[in-house]
């Protein structure tokens, strides 16, 4: 590592910066990917990008906001690539090009008469959040899971406060509907 990656931070402080933000960044990414190993890999990429771009960071936004924005963008990129791979895999299976049998997601055994375990409930919610549109999902993850204020969400998503309010309002409405439909079938 070279010395002094930026006027805002030197290489010694870069370690402190990583230690300070790593868990928050990791959790943001984990909300998008639902896989710890993938989240760690993407978090690593985030900090490499932070290190590379620190010299050009102009301080227009807070450093933490900037880092969280990189984390969100990297997560969305990773999801896009993963979904593309998944679709290609499905295509290969359909056309018989793929010899390797892909793991199929096994549906959770749900017993409508028993009280749902909190883990199972959390998983149902996660899946419902996952099925939202990209913008609604991002706003909900940042606000509801990670506890960022509307203002902070707007800064991370580089949008306006009313837009975030609308995204979260519509997102929650959609979530309720999706969950209602899910429980109507399973109960």
């Amino acid at each position, binding site marked *: 590592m070279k010395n002094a990656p930026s006027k805002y931070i030197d290489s010694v402080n870069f370690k402190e910066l990583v230690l300070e933000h790593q868990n928050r960044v990791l959790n943001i990414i984990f909300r998008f990917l639902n896989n710890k190993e993938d989240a*760690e890999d993407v978090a690593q990429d985030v900090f490499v990008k932070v290190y590379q771009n620190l010299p050009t960071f102009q301080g227009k936004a807070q450093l933490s906001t900037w880092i969280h924005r990189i984390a969100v963008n990297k997560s969305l990129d990773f999801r896009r690539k993963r979904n593309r791979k998944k679709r290609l895999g499905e295509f290969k299976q359909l056309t018989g090009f793929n010899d390797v049998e892909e793991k199929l997601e096994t549906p959770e055994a749900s017993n409508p008469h028993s009280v749902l375990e909190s883990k199972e409930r959390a998983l149902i919610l996660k899946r419902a959040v996952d099925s939202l549109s990209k913008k609604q999902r991002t706003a909900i993850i940042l606000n509801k899971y990670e506890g960022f204020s509307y203002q902070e969400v707007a800064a991370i998503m580089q949008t306006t406060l009313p837009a975030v309010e609308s995204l979260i309002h519509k997102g929650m409405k959609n*979530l309720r509907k999706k969950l209602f439909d899910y429980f109507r079938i399973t109960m």
Partner: protein
Amino acid sequence: MTGELMNKKKLIEAEVEKTLQCFDQPEKIESSPFFFTRVQAAINALEKKETESGISSIFENVLRPAFIGGIVLINLITAGFTLSRQDTRRTTKSQVIYSFAEEYAFTQNDYDILKMNEVR
């Protein structure tokens, strides 16, 4: 029947609300203790790669044109040398004809005929 449906709707709504409460206790994960070491290794690998690509770009931008220039220069020198040797050979032949004509006291006409039939 309507009462039963109402009850079911209320039950479902209660389940929905209960599920939404999971937002309040999100599952948190911790990064591995070697996380920074991994980041550092990734940065070092990237910098090494950049240095290597820098060296190859020096080769591409400086050494390759210099090499091509050198080849062209060698070709020019060789061509120049060959042409100058041909001129010398021609001068030598003319001199031989001249001295031959002089020795045998050829007339100007004979000399011209010899010169015209000069083997190139």
